[in-house]
């Protein structure tokens, strides 16, 4: 087999830069001491069998002890044939895996005569990775292991050593070496986690544990001395309450700015600010107030509670970041609440608290690692470690937790918990961001309002909500819930189009010429045509043809707010949740000859791999396929049901377990119901506490809570409850090209 005679190495930048390649090692500036002294500049890098890297002076003695393969992956990639442009990245990937191996390698001197110099390992921190465009997705496993249940187990062991529990109970030598950890432990558990655990335990035993009971059993278990004597085992719904209040406040700020307003310099200053932001006091001194940029942005407002979506927006759609809500997620608020407010109440500095959250989603680990949630003063994070639901289950099982064992006081109302427990904001099981806003806007509006919901393409994961003034027929709000990657794509296109951001950017292939303008005009004409022709849909039109031009059709009304979540079904279906209990499923769950994979939305699919054999497809495969998929959807529905099972007032039409639907739309489509559910005594207590906490933290000069407080207090509030986003540069091509020379 011969190569084409025309094979040349040209225009290597033509393919997209391999984003999976980590560029950090290239930028390491450590030099071998020999080189610095100038005594020996000819060295080679050797790798021993443990993947340790050594620099060996080749002039001293030609080394035969080891092959010099370290640079091979890179040079090999220079020899690609034309057809393997795209595959060059795969070669570069091996360079990355080499780096990972270095991190995990064991220190061991190489027995070579040339005095090899052990090279410093490349240290890649989570922050480096978050600042890079690529390998976060491809080496998530590495990031996830940084925050694992093992780390929590280690903390428990160390904290027990501090508490002195191990002195007589654990005579083992290993334990004696543990360095005592004096930090006070706090675990904050998301309500979706409790729902998932409850559904999982319930399906194994045929009996459900109410979320509140389960939370208290876990609390009772973990506050015992042998399990680390955690000072707090709470849920995150009160933090979510604070987040939701701030959410409404931000919506009003944005509404005052208007639609589609997003000054470009706002984004730049935000990103510049974030990159330099290590100390808030420095920022104040420089006069860089981050909230100005947020105030500059208008509608639509896009929810930011889903770290998967935020991560995607930062990487792929930096132009939309100005529309992403700056309010911290419930995890983010919980972090500030525990380390700042609760800590100061109990005389603990932030670094004297070990805060673990339990979330339905792996991406929350990335969120907790964001620089905004790191205090350089105390060198600690608001959330030290994030576990997924499955990891908490593992931790509890390893420590012998029995969810069925009753504990004293598990049914009592009063607990030692400093926050209201399990506030079930009515709306969606992903946090009810949209519904809380709807409830607020309906209350705020002077006239009675009507809420209508429309599922796009019949999908429960893409629903548009219209809040209409019942008297005038005017649409006062158009919101949507948009879950899952595919719906997210269309949302991004829609928002880009509505805000004109895509047009302003020119599109990558240059849309925006005369034809594009003509088509846009046609679209507008088509819409107004539809609005007048199909006029019966709006009350204004039913009164006659006199006012059609003043009525904006629902299609023409641009979005005001979108509750965006990356997972189909929302957070109850998060990637870190419990998987359906295999034993509780019927036998068809057992994998057939085909292989089971996951589709893009996380639902398992089965396909045949029997080559041309297609008989199975006709008879067995579709059924198996169905069974697999529906069992998963039914499982998510079951978690959804558990999530709502603790509602103070049962919803009018509670979601049934056998339905495929997520049940999040149906029970809460009436404004009255939303209003009733969210005006209970529990919520007003939560409101009062939220205000007290804001006063405690923000220290307004007036000493009392206001919607808008004095400047310093507002700044404190911003730091307490909000965060920033930055566009991740995707094109690292130039950087690698300029940094690599041969």
């Amino acid at each position: 087999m011969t190569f084409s005679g025309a094979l040349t190495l040209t225009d290597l930048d033509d393919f997209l830069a391999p984003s999976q390649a980590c560029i950090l090692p290239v930028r390491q500036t450590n030099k071998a001491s020999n080189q610095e002294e100038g005594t020996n500049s000819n060295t080679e890098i050797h790798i021993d069998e443990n993947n340790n890297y050594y620099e060996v002076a080749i002039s001293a003695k030609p080394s035969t002890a080891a092959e010099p393969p370290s640079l091979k992956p890179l040079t090999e990639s220079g020899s690609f044939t034309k057809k393997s442009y795209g595959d060059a990245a795969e070669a570069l990937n091996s360079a990355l895996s080499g780096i990972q191996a270095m991190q995990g390698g064991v220190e061991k001197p190489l027995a070579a005569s040339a005095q090899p110099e052990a090279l410093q390992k490349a240290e890649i921190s989570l922050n480096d990775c978050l600042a890079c465009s690529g390998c976060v997705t491809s080496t998530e496993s590495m990031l996830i292991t940084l925050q694992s249940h093992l780390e929590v187990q280690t903390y428990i062991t160390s904290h027990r050593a501090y508490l002195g529990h191990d002195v007589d109970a654990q005579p083992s030598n290993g334990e004696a070496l543990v360095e005592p950890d004096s930090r006070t432990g706090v675990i904050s558990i998301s309500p979706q986690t409790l729902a998932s655990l409850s559904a999982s335990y319930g399906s194994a035993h045929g009996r459900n544990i109410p979320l509140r009971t389960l939370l208290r059993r876990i609390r009772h278990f973990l506050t015992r001395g042998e399990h680390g004597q955690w000072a707090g085992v709470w849920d995150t719904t009160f933090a979510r309450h604070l987040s939701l209040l701030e959410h409404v406040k931000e919506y009003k700020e944005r509404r005052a700015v208007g639609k589609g307003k997003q000054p470009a310099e706002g984004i730049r200053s935000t990103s510049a600010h974030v990159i330099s932001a290590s100390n808030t006091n420095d920022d104040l001194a420089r006069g860089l107030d981050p909230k100005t940029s947020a105030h500059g942005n208008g509608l639509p407002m896009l929810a930011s509670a889903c770290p998967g979506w935020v991560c995607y927006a930062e990487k792929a759609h930096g132009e939309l970041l100005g529309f992403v809500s700056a309010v911290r997620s419930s995890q983010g608020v919980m972090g500030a609440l525990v380390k700042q407010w609760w800590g100061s109440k109990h005389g603990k500095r932030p670094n004297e608290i070990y805060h673990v959250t339990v979330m339905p989603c792996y991406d929350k680990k990335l969120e907790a690692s964001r620089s905004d949630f790191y205090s350089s003063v105390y060198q600690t994070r608001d959330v030290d470690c994030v576990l997924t639901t499955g990891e908490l289950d593992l931790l509890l099982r390893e420590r012998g937790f029995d969810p069925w064992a009753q504990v004293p006081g598990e049914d009592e109302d009063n607990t030692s918990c400093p926050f209201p427990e399990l506030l079930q904001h009515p709306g969606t099981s992903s946090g009810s961001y949209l519904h809380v806003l709807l409830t607020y806007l309906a209350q705020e509006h002077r006239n009675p309002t009507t809420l209508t919901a429309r599922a796009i393409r019949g999908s429960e994961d893409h629903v548009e909500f219209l809040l209409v003034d019942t008297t005038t027929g005017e649409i006062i709000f158009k919101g949507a819930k948009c879950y899952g990657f595919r719906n997210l794509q269309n949302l991004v296109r829609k928002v880009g189009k509505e805000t004109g951001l895509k047009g302003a950017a020119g599109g990558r292939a240059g849309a925006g010429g005369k034809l594009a303008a003509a088509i846009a005009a046609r679209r507008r004409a088509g819409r107004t045509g539809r609005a007048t022709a199909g006029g019966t849909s709006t009350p204004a039109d039913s009164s006659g043809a006199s006012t059609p031009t003043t009525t904006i059709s629902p299609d023409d009304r641009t979005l005001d707010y979108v509750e965006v979540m990356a997972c189909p079904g929302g957070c109850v279906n998060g990637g870190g949740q419990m998987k359906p209990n295999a034993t509780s499923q019927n036998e068809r769950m057992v994998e057939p000859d085909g292989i089971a994979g996951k589709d893009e939305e996380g639902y398992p699919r089965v396909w045949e791999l029997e080559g041309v054999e297609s008989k199975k497809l006709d008879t067995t495969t579709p059924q198996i396929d169905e069974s697999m998929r529906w069992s998963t959807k039914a499982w998510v529905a079951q978690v959804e049901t558990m999530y709502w099972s603790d509602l103070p007032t049962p919803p009018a039409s509670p979601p049934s377990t056998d339905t495929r639907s997520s049940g999040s739309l149906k029970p809460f489509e009436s404004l009255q119901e939303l209003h009733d559910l969210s005006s209970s005594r529990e919520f007003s207590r939560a409101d009062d506490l939220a205000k007290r906490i804001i006063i405690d933290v923000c220290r307004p000069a007036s000493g009392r809570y206001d919607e808008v407080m004095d400047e310093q207090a507002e700044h404190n509030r911003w730091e307490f409850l909000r965060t920033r986003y930055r566009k991740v540069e995707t094109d690292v091509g130039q950087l690698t090209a300029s940094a690599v020379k041969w």
Partner: protein
Amino acid sequence: MSGMELVAELKGHTEPAWCVAWNPTRPLLASCSTDKSVRLYTYRFPPSSSSTDVAVPIFTFLTEIPTAHKRTIRSIAWSPSGRTLVTGSFDSTVGVWEQLDERDEGIERSGAMQANDEGEDGTGEWECVTTLEGHESECKSVGYSSDGALLASCSRDKSVWVWEVQPDSDFECISVMMEHTQDVKTLAWHPKEEVRYFDLPSPILASASYDASILLFADDPDADWGPFQKLQPSLPAVDPTMASGLNSQDEQMSLAGDEAKPSSADNDDKNDEFTVPALKDPETIWSLAFSPCGMFLASGGDNGGIRIWARGLSWTDSQSSSELDRDEDDLGRLASTGGDGRILIWQVRKTSETILSSHLSSPVPKIIATIVGLQERAHEIHDINSVAWCRRSVPEEEDASSPGHARAVKMQQRTRQLLATAADDGSVKVWRAT
């Protein structure tokens, strides 16, 4: 053996040309290149030769679209209507191009194309009407479904996307499928509009990948788009009658011909000058082509072999079954080319014999592939990246007695022998099978 003659050599791209595409309704040939441009050529038949079917068309350069793509345009495809051109680029985006009509901007101009069939109507300015973003890395292939209602794209990011074509050049993403484990190299839509799946009709999309597998996707009415079958060419190496191979490198293929039917390729003994490599190792699949009847799928892999996949009987809908009953054995011609610079044309026929072996669930008709055309060094020393048959369509709704219909039928007959290739030297060549 030749069996083919050179009709035109079209130079112009300054960098390797990657893909050629014939417009199904208009006399246009498009090519794309690493130089980030699309070149359009038109062709017409000399009036004097109108009485004979062996007329050789004359090709002329029409226009160049200097796209704003930032990197190589790897793939181009026409919509079935012939009005829209899509470009898939290594810059990860898909461009959608339509022609600016100076006569009446913004108003549909149906029927205007047929009347203009012999002339050049591609001169109007082509503009990007929308850009589809979403792929994380290089887009490798794009294609419209047979009815033009869906557009698919695939990428090195291992995903296959399906977009719904909406009025006024709008697109909505209806599926992102990530079942491949590697770079997705190419895709092909089933030529028939609807195929039964789960009792309901659905278009079928095939995709091929560096992961050495072909996936078949369909729209599950109860859920979303998803794969329903995985084909791995490395599997049945035991049965030599299943494989057909040539000693070439990667293969680019295009199937042409009219109605034809069922299963499994055979090596033609007459061509023993070619050695047949064993197709047992997993290999990247570079190209896919459905037979015009939709009953067969050909795949070209890294080792130079071509595999032909037969549609199992249980998979067929009633319509296709009835076609099976017809005693028609011409499956059309299959053209293949690759890095070896060779173009091969195979005549593929179904025999009355059937094959039933252990790895087959139902008997499939044995098919025979005979080489009827061979061109060595078709682009001199250069790798050939793409081959495409000219497939002019005859509008179904057209009144069979109308002049437009007659013109379309005539054009289809006159162009069916034409195929185009694109190569690393940036040139496009048009060939006629004789």
